[in-house]
């Protein structure tokens, strides 16, 4: 137990000093933290519950739009802001910026969670591949719809409010966002770590293993499934709100409801790390981000080819992921006791 506390303490301490160790990579590492949140929350559905969703990107984009809209809409007319295309007609003062950011960030968690609760009853009743395709459709439909709404800039997208003048340069900006991302990531991780130890986590695993049996045992599975989706939507929405502020520009299909990038990334990261484990998605996200950045820099233009190939390879040859590989190699570390007699015993068929 003590070892664990020291281990977590070291990680948190490392996270706190990272912006000073690698000052040039602050934004990159912030994006990596967002990716960790995405893959952790995807794993609630895909890994623990056995519901492979492509639709969590819906909450990501929703959070992005909501956060920026509230940040602007609280102080200025939103329609004029988007119409002016981010020209500097309206400028946030520092107080306005931070007030708007706080309100927007909280709402970007709450509103997607409410949306998840509302649509959950209809969607989570689907099973298997019907669920996967349905959520895929949801994410793309949301992107197309957002591309038709004039208030949030339609197909051109909208700019999120720029960092206010007079309180420091872009360095301070990236440090600020880094610490917010880090806090959100730690909160997500600790919350899920706690949730998996409770009855909630057990029920999710029961649903994954055999949903009909779980229902027959008297568990109201639908309630737990919706709760799981609400939790995911809350954290993904907040991550989306942060991401929208960090990149400064929201485009409906390419950044917000980006099924081709973040929507696939979260599935791939969780599977790469090992789905159904707590640490798997984290490891997967870090490994994937390093791979991705390497490719994006050295083989520019080929990144989607590499992404497609990586998906095929990981899914076909490596479906258990990094954690699954470790588990096979060192089962003792995962608390699985293997009887030496059993291991040596010969299997006789009749």
């Amino acid at each position, binding site marked *: 137990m003590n070892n664990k506390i020291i281990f977590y303490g070291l990680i948190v301490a490392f996270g706190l000093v990272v912006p000073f160790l690698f000052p040039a990579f602050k934004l990159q590492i912030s994006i990596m933290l967002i990716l960790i949140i995405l893959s952790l929350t995807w794993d609630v559905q895909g890994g623990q519950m056995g519901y*492979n969703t492509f639709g969590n990107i819906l909450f990501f984009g929703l959070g992005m739009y909501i956060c920026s809209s509230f940040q602007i809409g609280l102080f200025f007319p939103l329609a004029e802001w988007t119409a002016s295309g981010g020209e500097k007609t309206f400028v946030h003062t520092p107080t306005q910026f931070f007030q708007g950011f706080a309100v927007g960030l909280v709402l970007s968690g709450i509103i997607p969670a409410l949306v998840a609760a509302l649509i959950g009853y*209809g*969607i989570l*009743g*689907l099973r*298997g*591949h*019907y669920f*996967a*395709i*349905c959520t*895929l*459709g*949801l994410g*793309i*439909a949301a992107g*197309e*719809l957002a*591309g*038709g709404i004039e208030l949030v800039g339609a*197909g051109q997208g909208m700019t999120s409010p720029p960092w206010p003048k007079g309180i420091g340069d872009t360095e301070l900006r990236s440090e600020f966002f880094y610490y917010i991302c880090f806090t959100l990531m730690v909160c997500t991780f600790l919350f899920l770590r706690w949730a998996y130890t409770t009855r909630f986590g057990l029920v999710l695993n029961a649903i994954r293993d055999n949903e009909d049996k779980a229902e027959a045992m008297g568990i109201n599975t639908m309630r737990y499934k919706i709760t799981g989706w609400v939790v995911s939507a809350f954290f993904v929405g907040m991550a989306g709100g942060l991401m929208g502020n960090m990149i400064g520009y929201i485009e409906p299909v390419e950044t917000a409801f980006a099924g*081709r990038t973040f929507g*696939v990334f979260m*599935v791939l990261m969780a*599977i790469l790390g090992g789905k159904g484990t707590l640490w798997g998605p984290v490891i997967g996200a870090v490994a994937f981000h390093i791979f991705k950045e390497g490719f994006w820099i050295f083989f520019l*233009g*080929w990144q*989607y*080819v590499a*992404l*497609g*190939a*990586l*998906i*095929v390879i990981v*899914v*076909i040859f490596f*479906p258990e992921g990094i954690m699954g590989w470790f588990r096979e190699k060192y089962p003792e570390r995962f608390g699985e006791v293997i009887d030496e007699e059993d291991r040596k015993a010969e299997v006789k068929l009749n």
Partner: protein
Amino acid sequence: MDFLIFQIPILMVQASMDGILLGILFALIAYGMALQWGVMNIINIAQGELVILGGYIAYFMYMAGIHPAFGVIVSPIVMYFVGWGLYKTIIFRVVDRDLFISILATFGISILTQQLMNFVFGSDVVVAQSNFGTTMLFNSMVTLPNSKIFAAVVSVIFAMLLVLYMRRSKLGRAIRATAQNARAAKILGVDTESVYAATFGINAALCGVAGALIAITFTLHPYVGLPYTVRSFMIVIIAGLGNLPAVALSGMGLGVFEEFSDYILGTEFRIAAVFLLLVLILVYRRFKLARKREYLK
């Protein structure tokens, strides 16, 4: 909206005709999907990309000076081998596994193909001119491009040919046997592995025909494949596997729905309408099935 759609009957006739002709084309793609879903139990997300790839073959013939209508003969032959190769490299590894693995693997293939097509053919929207002219109906109030009529007729011919082939030929019998029970078919001497490869090839060939027709009637772009996949998925889950008249009917229904939503909501919401319809159909189906389960209890 300053008018209601039923106040302009000519527009309704126009939209219905367009929708039906379009729907026959969708039904052809859906038939391919139903075939390989039924036989191999795989949902192919890359279906739309196969269609677009087939379309680019016809477009290349057009660029080389050959009339693109001949694409409906060349494209399926090329696409058969593409499909066969795809099966032999990737798909055969996912046949017996979890459905989600096949979805994700074909999703990866879809991203890969999109990007490769983007490299090879460029990211411009292209169209192959067929110069077929148009047909005027009802005192030239309804105009139908002849290319669309040609597309519908060719789709029907190919569907009929495939039905005949499946009924009469030895391979068709083997495919049907494998779809019913792969293990029993194997015991009785059917080489299921090559049946699977042929099925995937036939599916790709159907996509090639549809793609060549789309190159003539509509536009091609490397990234528009996914809506075709979703349309065919929708048609298949409404019609059920292996029910050809229902596939044709629901394809036409989807086409008419799309044309009407195009007129009423505007073209920018067309894709959104398709995907929302998918979600609605699946959710409706879920409640219907849930009610059926209640009866059984």
